[in-house]
């Protein structure tokens, strides 16, 4: 089995990662504004996490994407509606040209409303959007790695509202039963979903206790503090290989980085108008050049 030559972490420092995150947030707001459709809230809230993952934590080969990803760490986005974030991070990591971000949600684009493998966009390994399916896929991919003797890790991201789907708990049970300890699942614990606060729509109860009861190694992380994210992801990595799947419950703020989008569920799936775009971009310095 040949292992691809993996690029070393390209941005090590917290400051560099913060700078990338600012550009990614600009991309998100501009993409959703350009399409006048999409989900900015969760995308902005998970930006620090996904930037840390792709630009620091994961070993992956953006220049030579293969579906099987042998020898590479894999990431599966289960809450596919935060595709603007995923696409921006993939493009900024080198999976495809940054210019392509301008085609988001447009006709004949590879950047579909929700991620798909159908159009062979490098970096995407599964379609997601219909919620609750990504943890099962992550469990399967992690088991395949074990069968292949591949020591790399599998990461997944889920919305907290998504945990209302029953399949998540089927997968949770299976991951613990099969000792899938090369899997780090992350929940965007922002407490909000499209109809309102999670506690009002359908409360999740004691989330850490639930995952522990399902046999997972559970940790909590502040998801909008880059230093805390780096520390948390390192800690999560150290918990792998010990017989249990690892769950990172990540506290975030939906809409983080754009003041008028924070503190509410209202920007879950709403596009900013021209004035709102301008107000958002003022708060997000252009660090890597807009697409």
């Amino acid at each position, binding site marked *: 089995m040949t292992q691809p030559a993996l690029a070393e972490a390209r941005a090590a420092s917290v400051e560099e990662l913060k700078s990338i995150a600012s550009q990614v947030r600009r991309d998100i707001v501009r993409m959703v504004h350009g399409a006048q459709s999409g989900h900015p809230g969760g995308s902005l809230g998970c930006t620090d996490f996904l930037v840390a993952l792709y630009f620091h934590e994961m070993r992956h080969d953006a220049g030579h994407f293969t579906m099987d990803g042998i020898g590479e760490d894999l990431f599966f986005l289960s809450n596919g509606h935060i595709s603007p974030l995923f696409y921006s991070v993939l493009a900024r990591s080198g999976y495809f040209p940054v210019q392509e971000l301008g085609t988001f949600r447009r006709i004949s684009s590879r950047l579909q409303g929700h991620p798909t493998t159908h159009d062979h966009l490098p970096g995407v390994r599964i379609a997601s959007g*219909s919620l609750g*399916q990504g943890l099962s896929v992550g469990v399967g991919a992690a088991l395949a790695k074990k069968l292949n003797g591949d020591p790399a890790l599998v990461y997944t991201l889920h919305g907290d509202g998504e945990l209302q789907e029953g399949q998540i708990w089927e997968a949770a049970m*299976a991951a613990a039963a099969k000792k899938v300890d090369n899997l780090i699942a992350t929940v965007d614990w922002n407490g909000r979903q499209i109809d309102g606060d999670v506690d009002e729509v359908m409360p999740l109860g004691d989330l850490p206790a639930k995952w522990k009861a399902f046999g997972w190694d559970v940790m909590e992380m502040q998801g909008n503090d880059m230093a805390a994210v780096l520390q948390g992801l390192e800690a999560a990595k150290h918990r792998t290989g010990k017989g249990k799947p690892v769950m990172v419950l990540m506290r975030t703020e939906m809409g983080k980085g754009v003041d008028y989008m924070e503190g509410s569920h209202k920007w879950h799936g709403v596009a900013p108008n021209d004035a709102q775009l301008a107000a958002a971009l003022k708060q997000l310095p252009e660090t890597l050049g807009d697409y």
Partner: protein
Amino acid sequence: MTSYPVLDKKDTRSGFGEGLLEVGKQDDRVVALCADLTGSLKMDAFAKEFPDRFFQVGIAEANMMGMAAGMTIGGKIPYTGTFANFSTGRVYDQVRQSIAYSGKNVKICASHAGLTLGEDGATHQILEDIGLMRMLPGMAVVVPADFNQTKQATIAIADHEGPVYLRFGRPKWPVFIPADMPFEIGKAQVLSEGTDVTLIACGHLVWKALEAAAELEKQGIHAEVINMHTIKPLDEQAVLASAKKTGCVVTCEEHNRYGGLGEAVAQVLTTHHGVPQEFVAVNDTFGESGTPEELLKKYGLDTPDVVAAALKVLKRK
């Protein structure tokens, strides 16, 4: 007409079990997942021979489909095993998004399909699964006729790149396809040549079509019998060649008249060469408890029903 002696009576699910073991030996990329029906699906032999490549997932079919999709990432060829109802209707969105739309190389193996499941009744007797699966872009749908062919098909689908739905059943059924008869996905088998009427059948009803052809022969009617073991991609050339020769068609399937083999054939005929067609299929209803033979008789899928449909369509020529 060509006659097919009954070689044995065996369940098609046992053909799957033997085929799975065989393909597991041939190809170490093959893995199997089962949702608490290992005995019913006859997957025990594979599980015993390849414990590291067998995954018992419990009564959680949605997760099984997602796990199977994930295991293709890394090059595995997953075979999922559960009843046809739980392989399709119960998990339709998982199959649609994580497998079909994602283009994953998963083999969805479904037992206890149709009325011949028998006594368990309508909750388990899915009659809509062929329709559900053939509507999914990129999904191949294979419905073998007997034990021997189910074994062949189980092995053959490993080499078919992309998702496959393999449908088989529970009852002991005549084994009549010679074990060495060539099997190719998408290539229909003309089991018996005839000039008056074409009988196109899949699954258990292929045997009923052969029985009906023998009855018709006694009346001086020469029926052509086609085993359409692959519903998708459908062998359109085989349909058209026979329809042009005989001028009328009867389709036979253990499925609702909507969505199944009959509609697939009708689409080809109406598009390219319109001839009269009759449907031997369940008439848009659910099944019920009973023995397989009782059910086939009650719901109009027995040999006399095929004969009657042939006589009816002949008058419409």
